[in-house]
């Protein structure tokens, strides 16, 4: 392996660090209609009357659309493989408004000033309805968020829109009630997590135009170009063959861009007017009508014997979908299936309900529901350890999946077989790195400050098993260089680079000899997109398979040109050698020859899907300093040790891990989408919604304990999402070890800690 497992630079690094114009808004400069939305001021209302006459007369205004001007068929904006599990519950513009910021009218004009003026001149008479803002009261509430009769689901997800249920599900392995009866210790608690905003630095943005062939071209910052094509076709009711989607560089996604957010509005403007149009979401719009993480309440029952061996786990997840059900039925599944699987138990029960309310619609966010689930279950495990007076790392070593479990069938994980796991090694290394045994549980360092440590483990998947696919095409060009065409979406994580590293080793060629091309749905092979931590594992394997086919073709062509049989020839990446005659022909000559006369150029394409989704694992340990007078937490040190199989690019993997840990810290300590009593988001800017700055994160140290995943490319599993899952439970555990207080709701603010300490008479 010359390139796999090496920290090579990203293919696009120099463009990125010298500020080259590579993002959507940069590559679409020129004459575009400016598209903006009139948004609902109410969280629940019906449009009784809408008058756009005055607004249309504003000079520069080209197009104003209301609910009367758009198709009447419902769709989902969730970027998932068809048939999407998310309900078809949206219209481009609806007469019924279900959250503050829901679109009321689309306005397009020559410049921002005229559009802003027109937005102010649209007259709307709203019938304001009582809003359902507490999702805990949603089921069978008299307020119904989706009373419409054309609500539909393509899959049976247990939806019942007349009862505000987006989806529901239940499963049981073994008999939990029987096992709980035999448990010496039972933890039964409720945990809550809040909606968080992905806060990628580049907000949602899309430019649309009609090309020479009369087709709609969409240049957009998305993780899911092929899904964008299908969703636009659904929403606009135009054939897929008329739509082309191009993805330039993306300024971050984290799942936000797995939902289509800004695409539909300029698209319908261009389709109606024939003119190029562009929509750039403001930061405020990205906050108020993006696709944040689902707010959740999780009830856990956890039972163990007198030695702390876990016997039964029962988990119930209640999820707030908000106004629309994007990713609701699927994210909730991970909260149980991923979280519970990490522990060996005799029986498991998992129930879930996802409900509608009049807050903004939620969506995908790194971790995809597993993050919420791990906060709850890991916190319960830490509480169990405390109850047993055990070191929580030791309790975990006795109960979690380890190398010894390789070969085990995981009943809560769709009966998949565990084929690689070094979680125990991760835990031991992390303990050593942070000096756990000396620091656990805490040390009063005087000055009303206490230092403490906390721990958590987590897993994720690598792609969606037996569902999503990745395909690549590799071409041999004249002069012997290769073009790697991919449908997977590099959103900064470096998949263009990683896939080229894999291809370089498979083809025994230099990394620089491989040209990568990002996604254009007209040209790229089909790939479901970059989500579910799938790219390295799924598309990476497609690269491996494609290279095998292409090598055979190169060998055959070389042998033919040399006049020998393919079985007598060998290809070493640079040339084909004929064993009998010793004659050689270089890759460059084969490339040239394939471009001449009747010869076809050499190309191969393969797609890959996986019947399994092998989990990567991680141990996360934290050291904090807690001020007993104020409750303030400072992160001192965070250690994350990861088993992502073979690390394809250690530099990029490390950055992914560090970045994910920091996002997890934000979620734990302060990130919180808050609403006022009317359902308007209160903290809709970076002034109020604080994400961690470099002053807030302490020291973060990441290391790897590689395993070898037999089903992955070069033994690789995923890393993207896993790394956000440990901070919340680990920090909550450190707070307990400092104060003996269990923080069961996020965010864990100093104010909450102090209040509990005062109530406990500790302060």
């Amino acid at each position, binding site marked *: 392996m010359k390139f796999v497992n090496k920290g090579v630079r990203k293919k696009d690094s120099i463009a990125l660090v010298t500020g080259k*114009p590579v993002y959507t808004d940069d590559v679409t400069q020129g004459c575009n209609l400016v598209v903006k939305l009139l948004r609902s001021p109410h969280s629940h209302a019906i449009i009784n009357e809408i008058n756009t006459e005055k607004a249309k007369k504003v000079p520069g205004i080209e197009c104003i659309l209301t609910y009367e001007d758009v198709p009447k068929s419902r769709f989902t904006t969730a970027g998932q493989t068809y048939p999407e599990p998310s309900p078809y519950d949206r219209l481009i513009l609806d007469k019924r408004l279900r959250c503050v910021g829901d679109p009321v009218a689309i306005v397009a004009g020559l410049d921002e000033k005229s559009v802003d003026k027109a937005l102010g001149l649209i007259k709307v008479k709203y019938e304001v309805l009582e809003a359902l803002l507490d999702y805990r009261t949603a089921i069978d509430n008299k307020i119904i968020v989706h009373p419409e009769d054309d609500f539909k689901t393509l899959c049976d997800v247990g939806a019942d829109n007349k009862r505000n249920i987006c989806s529901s599900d239940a499963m049981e392995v073994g008999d939990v009630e029987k096992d709980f009866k035999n448990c010496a210790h039972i933890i039964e608690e409720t945990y809550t997590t809040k909606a968080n905003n992905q806060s990628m630095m580049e907000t949602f943005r899309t430019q649309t135009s009609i090309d020479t062939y009369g087709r709609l071209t969409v240049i957009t910052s998305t993780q899911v170009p092929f899904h964008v094509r299908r969703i636009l076709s659904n929403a606009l009711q135009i054939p897929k063959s008329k739509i082309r989607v191009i993805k330039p560089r993306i300024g971050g996604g984290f799942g936000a861009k797995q939902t289509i957010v800004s695409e539909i509005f300029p698209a319908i403007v261009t389709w109606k007017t024939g003119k190029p149009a562009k929509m750039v979401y403001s930061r405020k719009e990205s906050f108020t009508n993006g696709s944040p993480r689902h707010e959740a309440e999780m009830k856990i029952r956890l039972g163990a014997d007198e030695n702390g061996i876990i016997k039964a786990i029962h988990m119930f997840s209640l999820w707030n979908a908000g106004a629309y059900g994007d990713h609701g039925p699927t994210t909730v599944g991970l909260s149980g299936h991923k979280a519970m699987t990490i522990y060996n138990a005799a029986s498991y029960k998992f129930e879930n309900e996802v409900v509608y309310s009049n807050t903004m619609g939620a969506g995908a966010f790194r971790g995809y529901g597993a993050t919420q689930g791990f906060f709850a279950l890991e916190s319960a495990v830490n509480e169990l350890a405390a109850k047993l007076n055990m070191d929580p790392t030791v309790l975990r070593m006795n109960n979690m999946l380890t190398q010894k479990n390789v070969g085990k069938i995981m009943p809560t994980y769709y009966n998949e077989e565990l084929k690689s796991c070094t979680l125990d090694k991760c835990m031991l290394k992390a303990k050593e790195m942070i000096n756990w045994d000396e620091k656990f549980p805490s040390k009063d360092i005087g000055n009303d400050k206490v230092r403490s440590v906390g721990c958590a483990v987590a897993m994720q998947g690598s792609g969606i098993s037996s569902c999503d696919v990745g395909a690549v095409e590799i071409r041999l060009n004249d002069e012997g260089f290769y073009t790697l065409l991919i449908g997977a979406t590099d959103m900064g994580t470096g998949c263009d680079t990683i896939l080229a590293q894999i291809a370089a080793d498979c083809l025994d060629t230099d990394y620089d000899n491989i040209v990568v091309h990002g996604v254009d749905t007209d040209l790229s092979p089909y790939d479901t997109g970059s989500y579910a931590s799938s790219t390295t594992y799924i598309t990476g394997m497609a690269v491996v398979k494609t290279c095998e086919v292409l090598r055979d073709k190169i060998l055959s062509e070389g042998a033919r040109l040399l006049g020998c049989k393919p079985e007598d020839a060998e290809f070493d990446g640079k040339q084909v050698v004929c064993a009998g005659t010793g004659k050689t022909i270089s890759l460059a000559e084969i490339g040239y020859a394939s471009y001449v006369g009747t010869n076809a150029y050499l190309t191969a394409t393969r797609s890959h899907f996986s019947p399994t989704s092998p989990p990567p694992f991680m141990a996360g340990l934290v050291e904090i300093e807690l001020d007993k007078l104020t409750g303030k937490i400072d992160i001192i040190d965070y250690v994350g040790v990861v088993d992502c199989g073979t690390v394809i690019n250690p530099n990029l993997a490390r950055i992914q891990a560090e970045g994910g840990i*920091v996002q997890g810290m934000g979620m734990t300590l302060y990130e919180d989408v808050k609403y006022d009593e009317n359902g308007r988001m209160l903290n809709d800017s970076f002034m109020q919604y604080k*994400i961690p700055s470099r002053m807030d994160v302490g020291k973060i140290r990441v290391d790897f304990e590689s395993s070898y995943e037999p089903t992955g490319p070069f033994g690789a599993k995923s890393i993207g999402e896993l790394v956000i899952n440990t901070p919340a439970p680990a920090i909550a555990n450190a707070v307990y070890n400092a104060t003996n207080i269990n923080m069961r709701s996020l965010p864990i603010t100093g104010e909450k800690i102090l209040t509990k300490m005062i109530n406990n008479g500790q302060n």
Partner: protein
Amino acid sequence: MQIKLWINDKEYIDDVLPDTLLLDFLRSKGQLSVKRGCETSNCGLCTVILESKPILSCSFLAVRANGLHVTTMEGLQEEAAEFGNFLADEGAEQCGFCSPGFIMNVLSMVKELNNPTEDEIKKYLEGNLCRCTGYMGQLRAVRKFLLLKNNREVSHEVC
């Protein structure tokens, strides 16, 4: 109203509206390295150098730049690449959207601070948010870059 300013030492005379932000003015002149990450002077992505000081161009009216020199990353390509190589070697540019604003501030820091400590580095760059990297890789890149700069200066002194 008419303003005259220099962008990367090239003179521009133009009519701008009183409420035109320097950020939008610069982008309209093809300075596309300048990015907007928020509208509230919180993220640092729109950082450019006015005369010799870094400023946030999202919170600065174009008319205020009348008669002044503005430097964007388009005018500092060599310096950006020099530090950018360190960032790339760490893999710490990730999505890259915050890189121009961040690098403009790093280049200013190198001029303003002599041998900064780790805390001073963090403090100087505090206003530059990044949602991808978790900041550690950026810090490693800055430290390695400063080490190289210091070594160079030391070797100059010896000469």
